[in-house]
């Protein structure tokens, strides 16, 4: 498809450690400019592997065996390394799950935001500082001067996540990968951060891949969704369609198993064993066909 910011085409990957066990099975997905795509699944579904593959940070034990990752039409897996490096951290940036380990504990916040602007955008020291201050205000940090001079441990979890959102958008990237960015936060802070990511994304016209296991978060922030199980795409489509008219039994079962404080009668239904049997049969059939 043309005009897509990101398209993952028939991506397959194996784990070298587990004797070539498949991790991604022929995954395809695409993302238009300015769109928010939810990458959803339970643990082991492959959602983080896809995010890491796009960011070029797959662990050494995982090898891509087939497929393409196209960024603005160009295959990143076939590009010279220098070209990949010029894209990552600049046109594609990351909002990580754990804001504490993503920040250097021994450096103040200021240089951690301005480094990229100075080195890769060629801004002067004072220009970069002014830009950082503006970004921190944009993410609703009340006292940006103080935060620029602070060390990471002096900020709360929610504040650190705001700093990293500011850093991710500082480069005016075309694509932001948000890897479970609210999993470690309290619900009230989570809501603020979700609102902030959506607002930044709309203001800057950025496309976002939002990795999450929470269908509630998906419903509130994603335009489209791709649901994965065991490295297979199970269902993808517009968020409203998928939640209101789920096509696959696994999608239906996942929605029914999510607890709801407003409807204790409908939530928390365990996923029937027949659904997992069906999934395992699909995966086995795919693997057989692959080997043939």
């Amino acid at each position, binding site marked *: 498809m043309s005009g897509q910011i990101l398209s993952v085409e028939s991506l397959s990957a194996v784990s070298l450690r587990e004797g070539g066990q498949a991790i991604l099975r022929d995954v395809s997905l695409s993302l238009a400019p300015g769109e928010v795509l939810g990458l959803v699944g339970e643990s082991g579904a492959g959602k983080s592997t896809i995010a890491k593959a796009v960011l070029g940070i797959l662990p050494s034990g995982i090898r891509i065996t087939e497929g393409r990752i196209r960024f603005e039409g160009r295959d990143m897996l076939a590009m010279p390394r220098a070209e990949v490096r010029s894209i990552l951290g600049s046109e594609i940036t990351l909002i990580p799950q754990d804001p504490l380990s993503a920040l250097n504990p021994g450096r103040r916040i200021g240089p951690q935001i301005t480094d990229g602007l100075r080195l890769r955008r060629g801004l002067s020291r004072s220009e970069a500082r002014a830009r950082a201050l503006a970004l921190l205000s944009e993410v609703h940090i009340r006292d940006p001067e103080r935060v620029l001079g602070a060390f990471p441990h002096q900020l709360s979890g929610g504040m650190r996540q705001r700093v990293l959102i500011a850093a991710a958008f500082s480069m005016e990237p075309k694509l932001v990968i948000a890897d479970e960015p609210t999993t470690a936060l309290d619900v*009230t802070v989570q809501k603020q951060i979700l609102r902030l990511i959506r607002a930044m994304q709309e203001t800057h016209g950025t496309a976002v891949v939002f990795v999450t296991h929470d269908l509630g978060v998906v*419903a509130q922030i994603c335009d489209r969704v791709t649901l994965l199980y065991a490295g297979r795409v199970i269902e993808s489509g517009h968020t409203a369609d998928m939640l209101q008219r789920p096509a696959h039994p696994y999608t239906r079962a996942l929605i029914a198993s999510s*607890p709801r404080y407003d409807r204790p009668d409908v939530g*928390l239904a365990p996923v029937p064993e027949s659904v997992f049997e069906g999934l395992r049969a699909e995966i086995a059939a795919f693997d057989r066909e692959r080997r043939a």
Partner: protein
Amino acid sequence: MTAPLVEARDLVVAYGRRNRLFGAPFPGVAVLHGVNVAIGRGETVGIVGESGSGKSTLGRALLRLVDAAGGRILFDGEDITRKGEDEIRPLRRRMQMIFQDPMSSLNPRQTIRRILAGPVLLHGLEVGPAAADRRVAAMVERVGLPQAVLDRHPHELSGGQRQRVGIARAAILKPDFVLADEIVSGLDVSTQAQVLRLIADLSAEMGLAMAFISHDLSVVRAICHRVYVLNGGRIVEEGDCEAVFAAPRDPYTRALLDAIPLPEIDPGWLQRGTGDEAA
């Protein structure tokens, strides 16, 4: 109402309290400021709040795992606030705990069989390994695990299976009171639903008094009869789940509920409530 099995009255807990060489002792930093909680037999009570609210401290204080700086803890009518460990020990079997992360609460070097049989023998519930093994086998079946797990070690099990072992280890001692601290927060939703079903069935079967600590109000709504909402070490709201969730009286409870994203399209949700400013 009959007398509660577990009770906290005007409970104050402070961390970092110590005596000084001269002058008054350093009072420490209070994390619970006079909390009243009562849990009856057969009752599952939710304790909810955000990080730093004091919910885990409250749970630990009920089990006398942290000391009270003020107020009282009662267990089955007995004041246990100041009892020494020797006096508490006979009660320990009757009060059990299920932890958030079974990986760090199960001995990694022991098989599941030993993990479950050890406490049975220690507390003298069965005499001899053969009888203990029979009890272990029955409990493993009750929590929905195959007998094959008995010879495995914790790291060989999935997260959901490990949490079932954690539940089995508490239930096998036939306790009267169970503290469950964030027991499903690390699990996938499909697994979470199964584990919650199991814990609800077991506690009904055994007539347990259960304190169910969670940051997830949807989960609490699903399995608790009553709920206490903690904010900054104080109870801001309590009542039957049905009433509290349908019409919360405290603005903090309201804010917590409004912040939960539900799996349905709600175009106004993202912009509603909860301030934007970060200090």
